[in-house]
């Protein structure tokens, strides 16, 4: 939608306190008292500077876009400093911004008709935006947080800006659903990691991930890989066997191919091509796998390559021990595996014996009749 002066509208939200804990060893800034501790330890705002860097990559479009944002340190300062046409919505208490401000800003920018929403922050900010706008609007993260387990960020602020420019110029049109994940900061401060999958944001698809432009691929990219994986898994399904379908977009396609709609973030039990239990908890899963032969179908969650123990804790050590390693079907698009850059897949179920059982090599289903042999470590 064109703005008043015929300009394209994009939104920008800066979470001014994101990233402040990192340099001073505080592992995130969820909660105002932590911000105070961070400031006392000498933390400086990071998110505004990083947002400015991303806007730098959009300078070529300055005459054609209008940036809608929130007041002061939530965006207005950097947008004006970068010399973009700027409209400021809403109101905040400067110096005391909260997650509620981020959520309200996202809703206001969506209502104002922005065609792309940029935000500068970390996993907590991504969660707030996901809660506010879901997958209704293309969103792109400018990496500025301490924790960035979510897959919604550009690899650098500059690259995020370039990606936004390509999207606005129509040079990339596709979007992909990217995981929003977060870990419990309090637990993280005590050296325990407990990551959850909170949902998905729609992110402009990096062309290289869609397809190696010059590599002569012609493979049709991520969507076709997902389809191939789903066809492979479903064509091998056996009657009378329970399939425990883990969370994520890769496994969701399996349900689509079967004509089923399960839960994106939960574990669904499929028997004879029907959903027997949706969003099953550990108790239901355990009861199922003790009653009948079962296979577990999982995908790699988030950017760190976790198979178990992040976002799918329902598939507990007891469930896994009962089903056995040989009945675990691992699925992932090739792009997801290559982005791990050789790091092994990880398991952290909470039970060292089960973790050890799961390590070794696994044949990942990466497409229709395609496998990648890959190590699993704990």
């Amino acid at each position, binding site marked *: 939608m064109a703005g008043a002066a015929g300009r394209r509208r994009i939104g920008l939200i800066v979470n001014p306190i994101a990233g402040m804990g990192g340099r001073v060893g505080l592992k995130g800034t969820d909660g105002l008292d932590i911000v105070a501790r961070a400031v006392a330890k000498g933390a400086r705002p990071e998110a505004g500077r990083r947002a400015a860097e991303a806007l730098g990559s959009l300078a070529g479009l300055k005459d054609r876009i209008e940036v809608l944002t929130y007041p002061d340190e939530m965006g207005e300062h950097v947008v004006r400093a970068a010399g973009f046409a700027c409209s400021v919505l809403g109101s905040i208490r400067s110096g005391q911004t909260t997650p509620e401000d981020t959520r309200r800003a996202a809703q206001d920018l969506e209502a104002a008709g922005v065609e792309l929403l940029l935000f500068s922050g970390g996993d907590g900010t991504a969660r707030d935006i996901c809660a506010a706008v879901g997958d209704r609007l293309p969103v792109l993260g400018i990496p500025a947080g301490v924790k960035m387990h979510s897959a919604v960020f550009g690899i650098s602020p500059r690259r995020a800006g370039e990606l936004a420019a390509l999207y606005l110029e129509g040079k990339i049109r596709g979007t992909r659903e990217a995981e929003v994940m977060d870990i419990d900061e309090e637990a993280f401060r005590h050296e325990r990691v407990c990551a959850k999958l909170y949902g998905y944001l729609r992110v402009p698809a990096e062309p290289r991930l869609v397809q190696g432009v010059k590599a002569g691929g012609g493979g049709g990219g991520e969507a076709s890989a997902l389809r191939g994986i789903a066809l492979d898994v479903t064509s091998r399904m056996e009657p009378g066997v329970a399939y425990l379908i883990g969370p994520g977009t890769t496994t969701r396609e399996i349900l689509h191919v079967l004509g089923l709609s399960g839960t994106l973030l939960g574990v669904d039990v499929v028997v004879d091509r029907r959903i027997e239990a949706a969003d099953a908890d550990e108790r239901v899963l355990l009861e199922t796998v003790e009653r009948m032969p079962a296979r577990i179908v999982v995908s790699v969650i988030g950017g760190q390559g976790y198979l178990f123990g992040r976002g799918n804790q329902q598939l507990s050590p007891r469930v896994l021990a009962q089903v056995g390693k040989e009945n675990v079907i691992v699925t992932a698009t090739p792009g997801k595996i290559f982005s791990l850059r050789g790091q092994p897949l990880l398991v952290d179920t909470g039970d060292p014996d089960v973790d050890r059982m799961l390590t070794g*090599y696994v*044949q990942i289903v990466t497409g229709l009749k*395609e496998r990648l042999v890959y190590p699993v470590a704990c």
Partner: protein
Amino acid sequence: MSREIKLRKYHAQVWDEPLLMDLSVEGQRGLLVPRAEEEIRARYGSAQDLVPASMRRRRPPDLPEVAQPQVVRHYTRLSQMTMGNDVSNDIGVGTCTMKYSPKVNEQLCSLPQMADLHPLQDESTVQGILEILYRTRDFIREISGMDEVSFQPSSGGQAVLAAASIVRAYHKARGEGKKRNQVITTIFSHPVDAACPATAGFEVVTLMPDANGYPDIEALKAALSDRTAALFVTNPEDTGLYNPRIDEFVRLVHEAGGLCFTDQANANGVLGKARAAEAGFDMCHFNLHKTFSSPHGGMGPGCGALAVREPLAKFLPVPVVAFDGKKYRLDYKRPHSIGKVRDFYGNVQVVLRTYAWIMSLGAKGLETVAETAVLNNNYLEKLLTAIPGVSISYGPGRVRLDQIRYSWEKLTAETGVTSEDIERRMTDFGIQAYWTSHHPQIIPEPFTPEPTESYSKDDIEYWAAVMREIDREARQDPDRVKSAPHNGVTGKIDESAMLFHEKCMFTYKKYKRIKQAG
């Protein structure tokens, strides 16, 4: 470096040449075909009668109507706007094994005995070319250590597909066709080594490199089973690393009941040094147009020579050239053959050039080719790795053979200039755009030069100097690099057309349709 390198101020000829279809003027002709003589017409009737009625067009095809001088100018202009091995340095076009193709071999191919050869000539009249096929077969047997050779495949890919079909035929003949349905390859093998077995119906299992950059042997052990049909690998891989445990890989696959094929599309790193047979392989192929020097890069003509051990020879595509001590012939009566992969002799002119090239070099000369190519590559590596933005991703510090896949990842992180920006910029210095990477692209911001034995020390130093200059430019004036080419035939092209099929124009018909739609 030996002497000061002066970067050329290249400027392309820009003719702004219209498409040939747009030069068409109704009624113009390039050539008026003379009327056939009375006797011929009386005997054969009109030319049209030679075409069966069911195959005749109702409307003539929409061909351009252009007079001869306009056609000559059109193509001469196009040739002036083209970079090629004869006018520029094409070290960058790695994995393609670009090398100088001696002009004398082109003269051989233009001799009437070759150029006018008809596929349906009687065998007694083509003994010469059959003898050359047979002798070249013996050369390839010696170079590979295999027992029988087919020159039928017209490309490397077709040779690999023929190999995959042979694997299928072999297991079927042993009653294991259904069970053995997996082919194992490695991620840095050529992509045909996965694509061809997939086309032949196999499930493809891919191995990733270990911490040293070599294919992971533990992953191989985990992948092997009674479903294993074969191993299809390139060695040295696209990283330039030669798998030092290749014989062990082959042994493990054989123990599991599989066959082993090695892709020697480019054999420049091992010619005369390492043979497929000694590593234990059952089959291999050579892109004759690459290693054995035919002009290539314009999609043909090529020849993928497929070499196999005796137990697999019966499966080779027909025809195979045979000799009974007196006469050469094309043997079509091979009941176990996977069948035809193309008609008649194959691209026999490529075989002729191969024969001439091998004869001119001799056995020692072939070894020198490999030695020079590897030396050249290692010299280029020294020059390139001294450039701040260049790195090598897998197995850094290890010796490479004939090529290397480098990465501009550091430069991209620091300046935003990507490998594709550099690819466009380098043409401004009068050298051909480089090859980035095979699919899938897993090394970030890749480029893959391959300085074969044909390039001089000056050529190699010039190429490296251009890379160094662009690295410097990227730090001082990144927009200059990102907006390149500046002196080329065309400016920067919107590459998004490659991602959206509705924007791609493969035919004139579609070009017109897209133009009309604006």
